[in-house]
């Protein structure tokens, strides 16, 4: 007790105050980390600011009717939004038709059926698939998927098609869906599986009616990640969908088409590169903003869904 009185000299009060050097050091660590956080916020704000500014410029330069026409041909002043949006949606849809069942099936297999040995072999292979550059998949979609799959099923289909690109994107997102969904399913406690087996349920019933619903938030997250990736995917579409020169509005997946991201890409480096201070160039920013809002909404929707269905074990 007496040692706490301020009258007493000696090392005790000093040691309580701590070393000033250490406290200075802690303050500077704080400042460094704070600036890292601030810089990333500043960059985001800067990007959004320049996007919005240029997009407004663009909208002032053009007639708004140019945004709703027969197709997307930036050099001819046709900036039809629905062409690109429907294009993106079709690609995403085809990709999900491919990757949804395969990814989920792989996840169920790896989490519920595979022996530990099999899982040790399969997981790395899946990760290799995730590591294949999208340009390779794009090329594969153009030179193999289009002639061997799409043209076999739809004989009227040509070299380029939304379907071929969509399948390519689907292959790209299989590993994302499979591995995130598998993690979610493996996190479901053994006790729930035991409850199910104890009631005389078979493995498939246990997997589909107990484990899958219990992991639903993670599986939704897996699909949202897959969809985000599909919407954002550029190169596969630019190579295989055949819309680089512009595209008329279409809902036909067997023909060529264009998506938001591929349009941005071809505007910036491809055959559509506009000369001079054209509105076409600024349409990039406008498309960028739309893409930004699109993915933001998707993530928000995913978040709401995940929170609403989150289960505590």
């Amino acid at each position: 007790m007496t040692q706490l009185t301020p009258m007493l000299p000696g090392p005790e009060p000093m040691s309580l105050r701590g070393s000033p050097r250490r406290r200075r050091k802690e303050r500077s660590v704080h400042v460094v980390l704070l600036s890292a956080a601030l810089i990333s916020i500043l960059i985001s704000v800067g990007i959004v600011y320049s996007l919005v500014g240029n997009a407004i410029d663009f909208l002032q330069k053009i007639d708004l009717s140019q945004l709703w026409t027969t197709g997307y041909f930036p050099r001819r002043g046709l900036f039809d939004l629905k062409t690109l949006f429907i294009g993106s949606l079709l690609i995403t849809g085809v990709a999900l038709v491919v990757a949804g069942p395969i990814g989920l099936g792989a996840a169920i297999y790896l989490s519920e059926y595979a022996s530990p040995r099999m899982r040790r072999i399969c997981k790395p292979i899946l990760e290799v698939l995730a590591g294949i550059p999208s340009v390779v998949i794009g090329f594969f979609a153009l030179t193999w998927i289009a002639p061997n799959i799409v043209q076999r099923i739809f004989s009227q289909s040509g070299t380029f098609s939304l379907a071929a690109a969509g399948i390519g994107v689907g292959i790209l997102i299989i590993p994302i869906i499979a591995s995130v969904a598998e993690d979610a399913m493996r996190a479901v406690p053994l006790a729930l599986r035991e409850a199910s087996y104890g009631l005389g349920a078979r493995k498939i019933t246990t997997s589909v009616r107990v484990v899958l619903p219990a992991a639903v938030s993670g599986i939704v997250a897996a699909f949202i990640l897959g969809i985000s990736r599909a919407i954002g995917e550029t190169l596969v579409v630019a190579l295989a969908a055949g819309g680089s020169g512009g595209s008329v509005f279409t809902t036909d997946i067997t023909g060529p088409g264009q998506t938001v991201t591929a349009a941005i890409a071809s505007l910036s480096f491809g055959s559509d590169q506009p000369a001079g201070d054209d509105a076409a160039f600024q349409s990039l920013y406008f498309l960028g903003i739309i893409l930004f809002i699109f993915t933001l909404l998707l993530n928000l929707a995913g978040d709401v869904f995940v929170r609403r269905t989150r289960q505590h074990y």
Partner: protein
Amino acid sequence: MNQLTEQTLVTVTLPESSPERSGDAANRADDDSVFSLRGVNVHYGSFHAVRDITMEIPRRQITALIGPSGCGKSTLLRCFNRMNDLITTAKVSGSVIYNGENLYDSYVDAVEVRRRIGMVFQKPNPFPKSIYDNIAFGPKVNGIKGNMDDLVEQALRDAALWDEVKDKLKQNAYGLSGGQQQRMCIARAIAVQPDVILMDEPCSALDPIASARIEDLMTELKAQYTIVIVTHNMQQAARVSDRTAFFTVEVDEARSSRTGILVEFDTAQRIFTNPSDSRTEAYITGRFG
């Protein structure tokens, strides 16, 4: 009765009818056994967990398995409905004869076994679904016919839970208290109309009042079901069980192995008042374990 009470080694109130009834059970013929275990051994990989268990489980009675931690009670219990199949390293040898059929015969489908021999676990494990869907799950996957609402109600009534949950059947089962969840798990097991209910320390996560309710429930259920229960609570075993099996761990220092063995299997009355093996006596009087 008086004489018996004086000899009782643990302070328990035995059910009125216990002496006669368990005396009966001890003398029952084999065909009144639901299970006959013959030389059952369980290995986890090379680890010999349970050795050479031979015992009979009488029909429509409560059999308690007691013994120190790690003696293989859960391991043995999980042989009764082939739950050990879920553990890839577990290997069972010997025979577990259930109504004349060896559960470990190659033609036997473990799913069919578990449909008849239900299980309640140590920790309540409701599905993250509504109370109704929890109960309806078993009947649905087993294709049991009949009005599902009635089935659910009956199972919940049998588990003495109906009055507490009848107004919130559509609510998530996680909203129930631990004791209610455990009774819901019992209701869920009953809903598939099994023959046997296995319970692995069903009260260990519950407070004394909730445990007492489950004990009452077990006593009611044995009119219809054969119950095998693992418990660490000696009073509970003495109160509810008709027959009690005491297991222990045999430690072999030389080979550093720890193997579970059955020491004594008799009426609860005898085990708790006048055990014939000194290890049993030491355990139930608390000098060991």
